[in-house]
């Protein structure tokens, strides 16, 4: 049995210089990322083992914060709400953005199509807090435009944000409205990249538009769907701004989400150590979901 000796290639001075220049270009953003993205994760991990109110030095308490996670009723409710929120927003915004993208790509290849794309994209560029404020006004039980429209159609007014059963779906609806445009643009780019010869062959073979969508477009868009679902899950698990502005977690605790309780534990209760423990757990949960999801998609491939 012969072995292949490992050959260590020596870098030429030119290659080394190019590598150094490349590293120099990357260095500023790499350093900033390390400072602002990576370091806080390690700091949070450290604080999660401490009792810390930011006014006095942190005190090491070992796993106490983690032990208390499992008995915290508020956190359980928040986790439950967050899962519901993810289950409402992710499928809805994924399916909606896909359908709109396919419709515009296939049936509106004209200036109206580009106008539609722009209109659907507008919510993406509007600030989240501004969106939440406007939707709060639109949701008003008395005088809100949505209820006025419902009254005009002969329906009774709906208490969108003040009733437990309606509050979370109402907040999720705003997230869907805001996120669909972004994902639609990604899907649209994907649909435009579907090879025209494949589509034409399907048309020649007599495939209907639904069959073309189901057997050609959808499978080709699978990597994009994977990315959109991943981004959607990560974003939805971190929902904070909409809840803070629209409901303040209420009524009761019906719109408490994990990110919102991290905020309340840290800044209202001044329990930064405990909040860090919850944040680290949220990070682990998101990583786990991402891993399971990527395995699922890989298996399907």
């Amino acid at each position, binding site marked *: 049995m012969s072995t292949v000796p490992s050959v260590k290639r020596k870098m030429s001075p030119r290659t080394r210089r190019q590598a150094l220049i490349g590293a120099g270009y990357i260095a500023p953003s790499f350093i900033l990322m390390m400072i602002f993205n990576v370091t806080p994760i390690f700091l949070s991990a450290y604080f999660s083992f401490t*009792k810390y*109110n*930011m*006014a*006095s030095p942190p005190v090491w308490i070992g796993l106490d914060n983690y032990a*208390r996670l499992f*008995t*915290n*009723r*508020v956190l359980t409710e928040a986790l439950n709400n967050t899962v519901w929120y993810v289950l409402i927003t992710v499928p809805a915004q994924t399916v909606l953005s896909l359908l709109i993208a396919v419709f515009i790509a296939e049936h509106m290849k004209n200036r109206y199509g580009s106008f539609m794309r722009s209109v659907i994209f507008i919510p993406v560029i509007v600030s989240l807090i501004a969106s939440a404020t406007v939707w709060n006004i639109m949701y*008003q*039980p*008395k005088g809100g435009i949505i209820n006025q429209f419902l009254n005009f159609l002969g329906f009774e*007014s709906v*208490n969108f*944000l*003040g*009733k*437990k059963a309606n509050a979370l779906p109402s907040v999720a609806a705003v997230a869907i409205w805001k996120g669909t445009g972004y994902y639609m643009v990604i899907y649209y780019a994907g649909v435009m990249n579907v090879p025209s010869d494949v589509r034409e062959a399907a048309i020649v073979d007599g495939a209907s538009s639904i069959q073309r969508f189901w057997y050609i477009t959808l499978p080709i868009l699978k990597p994009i769907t994977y990315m959109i679902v991943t981004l959607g899950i990560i974003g939805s698990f971190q929902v904070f701004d909409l809840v803070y502005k629209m*409901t*303040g*977690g*209420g*009524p*009761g*605790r019906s719109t408490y989400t994990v990110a919102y309780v991290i905020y*309340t*534990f840290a*800044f*209202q*209760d*001044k*329990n930064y150590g*405990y909040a860090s423990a919850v944040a680290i757990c949220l990070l682990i949960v998101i990583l786990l979901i991402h891993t399971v999801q990527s395995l699922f998609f890989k298996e399907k491939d």
Partner: protein
Amino acid sequence: MKRILATLLACALLLSCMSFAAAEDKKTLTVWIPQYQFGDGISDQDFWDGVFDPFEEENNCEVKVEILSWTDYNTTIYTGLLNNDGPDVVYVTDNYDLVKAGLLLGLDSYLTQEQMDNYLLWALGPVNANGEHVIVPMDDGVAMGFYNKDILAAAGIDTFPEDWDAFIEACKTIQEKTGKQSFLQNWGATSGTSALMLAFWPYYFQAGGVMLDADGNIAINNEAGLKTLEFLKKFADEGIFDETIVSEGESIDKFAAGELAFVVADLNKGKTFTKNEINWEYFFSLKGPVGYGARTATDSFGVSAKAKERGNDELAVKALVLITSGAVMDRFHSEVFYLPPFTKDAAYTQNEAYTALTGAHTADIYVVSEFEGKASFEKELQANIQMMFMGDLTPQEVLDNTMQYYAEQIKQ
């Protein structure tokens, strides 16, 4: 051409450096005050900017007044005072945590005895570890009830129904006979403090409740707490509270529009009600199982401990003295918001009906106490009471859950 351009650019650079150096000499003071103007009068920003214009000239400084929202105010100032770029002078709501964390400057060594004596509530203010007073407390006034005499007359109610049960019956009668709403409270407010100040603590005092135990810890899991919550629950069960009230000002707007029979609000609202030609009258409070009870509270002004690190301490105390002076507060009370006087030299006097009612009930006015994690406690209690209104919790569970959360999460 290039030379001219380069020379001009160099000059511009030089000038900007010179102006920067000049600005360096000028101290900048940051003042945080919450919004008090909710009417048509002068805005808070314009009022305070006007107050500080001569101060800036006299002290060669720049005063940046930032008007903050009441939402999460306590959280905002706590984190702001921890920060090196936070406020120098700050309006304080719940002071316990700020004092405990050492975030406020001791004021005794900066003020003269005469200045300290001039503050009406100086002696009641908390002290730091060195025994120095850290805030200048002010009387927030007693929150009073208002009733619409025309609506009561239309429902055939001759006298104000002050007993708890009589009040609930009167509310039902008003709704049946007039078709108008009877009584609403701001349980939809996003701040627990706002809701509790008007819609919980007064009833708790009327039921004989005491906020703190012998060790100074909050303790509401008692008979008075239970009676209070059972009383509040009746408003929801009897269809008196309106679940569509999702924001703080809605009940007041309804009263101002003549659509509501009773409301509890701050004294300033009387002006609006009169302007809207509402035939209204004050009531001191309802009468619970133990007696009458209305709440008052003390907000305050303080100086950040970080102001000393920034070398702004003397200037900040000077600004604090200006803000709390009789002359400025008199103007504030007449132009922006109606409150009891702050200092002995204030010329401002209370409205007669208010003075008469509070004078007749001095023993029934309770101060909402300060305790550790008060803002968080109140937010948690509010959320649990909302859940009780929605049928998810019983009154006893509200008390148990709130106190358990307080013990596990809030108390350090």
